[in-house]
């Protein structure tokens, strides 16, 4: 789960990482306690908000009112701004970069630092990024930090402060089950001292249960996706018009790929998982209907899950709730023929192979 910048900064404060003084503002009543000039920052879970006009420096009360009105409700790459952070303006001497992420190949946290802060780390030359991998069995040790600093030249006081920030960020990364903690830029202030000007924190969804202090807003999800998440259904909205229901994430992805091969385009990824529970099947179809696809493509492989049990669930939903778009099915595996009979009986179109069903779905969706 991606946190908003302000939520990330709240965690930074908890871990003694200096951040600018600031607060969320809704209207001009909230400006009290802030000293002009200050900065208004749109809270969206996506980069590039500065360029989109989501960050503004304000000089006085009228300026602040006007710019807040402008930013609030703004559409930044599909995200409507509902929260604005007002922060003191800090003068910068130098911009640094610090992140801890997960290295999947080495299966360890990876610390990256650079003297080239402020820009997208992808565009920084590799030799200017210094990396250290931390074996979770030993954790972060002082030698890791010494190695990092042997390459990045900082004066003594700054180095000392930076190393404290690294060890605190590592604690935050581990304690809060983070996928990513990034501070970009981490600045050296004109008047000395380090400060995190931005925050990017992603917490592993699977670990949210042990972080009840974080309000799960799932800012990056659509409202239907949020609804699905609450029901424990793996559901993703895409930009096509064919709703795909399959069992297993790999098979669902492969089904979307097959549609593309026939110039069709998936609009929903819905993974039933290993379930043949009629209630789950019903919920899945209800969600799918709300996404309003032009065609639904149901692709099942029955291994442990029996095809006919799922088919019965599907038939029951369609007979009870009705469905106003064509449903193409392709069924393979355990009790396949019984399942096909049930679905035909429910008025659904059955394809013989994945290719056949994908072709049918794609042409109907055109």
């Amino acid at each position: 789960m991606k946190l908003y910048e302000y939520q990330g900064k709240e965690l930074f404060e908890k871990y003694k990482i200096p951040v600018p003084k600031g607060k969320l503002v809704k209207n001009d009543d909230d400006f009290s306690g802030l000293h002009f000039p200050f900065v208004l920052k749109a809270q969206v879970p996506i980069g590039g908000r500065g360029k989109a006009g989501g960050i503004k420096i304000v000089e006085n009360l009228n300026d602040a009112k006007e710019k807040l009105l402008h930013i609030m409700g703004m559409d930044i790459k599909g995200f409507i701004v509902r929260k604005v952070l007002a922060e003191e303006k800090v003068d910068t001497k130098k911009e640094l970069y610090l992140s801890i992420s997960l290295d999947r190949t080495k299966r360890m946290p990876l610390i990256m630092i650079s003297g080239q802060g402020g820009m997208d780390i992808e565009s920084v030359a590799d030799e200017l990024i210094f990396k250290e991998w931390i074996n979770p069995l030993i954790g972060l040790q002082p030698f890791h930090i010494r190695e990092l600093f042997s390459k990045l030249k900082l004066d003594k006081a700054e180095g000392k402060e930076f190393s404290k920030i690294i060890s605190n960020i590592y604690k935050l990364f581990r304690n809060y089950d983070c996928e990513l903690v990034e501070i970009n830029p981490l600045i050296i202030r004109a008047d000395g001292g380090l400060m995190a000007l931005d925050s990017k924190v992603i917490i592993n969804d699977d670990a949210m249960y042990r972080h009840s202090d974080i309000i799960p807003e799932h800012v990056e999800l659509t409202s239907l996706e949020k609804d699905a998440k609450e029901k424990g259904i793996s559901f993703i909205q895409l930009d096509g018009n064919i709703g795909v229901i399959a069992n297993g994430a790999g098979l669902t992805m492969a089904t979307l790929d097959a549609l593309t091969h026939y110039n069709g385009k998936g609009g929903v990824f819905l993974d039933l998982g290993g379930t043949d529970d009629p209630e789950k099947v019903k919920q899945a179809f209800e969600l799918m209907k709300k996404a309003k696809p032009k065609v639904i493509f149901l692709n099942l492989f029955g291994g442990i899950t029996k095809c006919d049990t799922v088919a019965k669930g599907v038939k029951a939903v369609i007979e009870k709730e009705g469905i106003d778009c064509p449903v193409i099915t392709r069924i393979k595996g355990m009790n396949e023929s019984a399942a096909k009979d049930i679905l035909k009986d429910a008025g659904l179109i059955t394809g013989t192979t994945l290719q056949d069903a994908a072709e049918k779905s794609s042409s109907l969706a055109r």
Partner: protein
Amino acid sequence: MSIFVDKNNKVLVQGATGHQGVFHIGEMLNFGTKVVAGVTPGKAGEEVHSVPVFDNVKAAVEETGADTSLILVPARFAKDAVFEALDTTIKTVVVITENIPFHDAMEFVHYAKYKNAILIGPNCPGIASPGKTKIGILPGNIFKVGNVGVASRSGTLTYEIVNSLTEKGIGQSTCVGLGGDPIIGTTFIDALDAFEKDKETKSIVLVGEIGGTAEEDAAEYITEHISKPVFAFIAGRTAPSGKRMGHAGAIIARGKGTAESKIKAFDKADVKLAKFPTDIADLVEKFG
């Protein structure tokens, strides 16, 4: 021969008395797996399909000589369960459980390495060697004894591919589900290395998907170390960037993990790629 497991593995099941545990102990026994013990805290003395249940792994190992553990416990208790198994003489751990926080997985994967144990998963269907053993939740009826080694990041998609091989009369040596999480214990490279050494395996099928660089790493390894023919399917060619496609590990993040990059890497390594999952069987028939 087979890879990682064979008919001699003595399996204990952690989470034996739940719905899943009871069902899959039965399925494994039907397949011929030596299931010797179950473990559920507080349920010592019970039996599941005549398999004795113990309170803890240590007692089960002492009584039955189990050397392999299958983890079916809920995600919140998985780290504890895996550590408990690894802290005995158990040398193979198969973790089926889904939604384990990856920080937990990171810890037990490194602990397994330190203990010189094989850890398969998490979030995987397990491993099956037709005619010998099945440790996991893979459907037993899709397999056939033969010479194709299969390693995969997904579940159902693998069943589909194995089933289409079997329908063509092509059997399998071992089929291992590596898991759909970003952090897994056994990788494509581990499986490739084992299949290359295994005399019964004549050709290898890899089922990959978007996210991470496991396929790219495998392609490089194939070029340098693998002499047997390799076939592959990659799921998620049309998945958008930044969306987690069902599996925790299936996400294109910061430009990394795209299907194009994986397809390019496999092409370069002379791996034959299938457009549709069931095409794998045609390719193996033709070139395997």
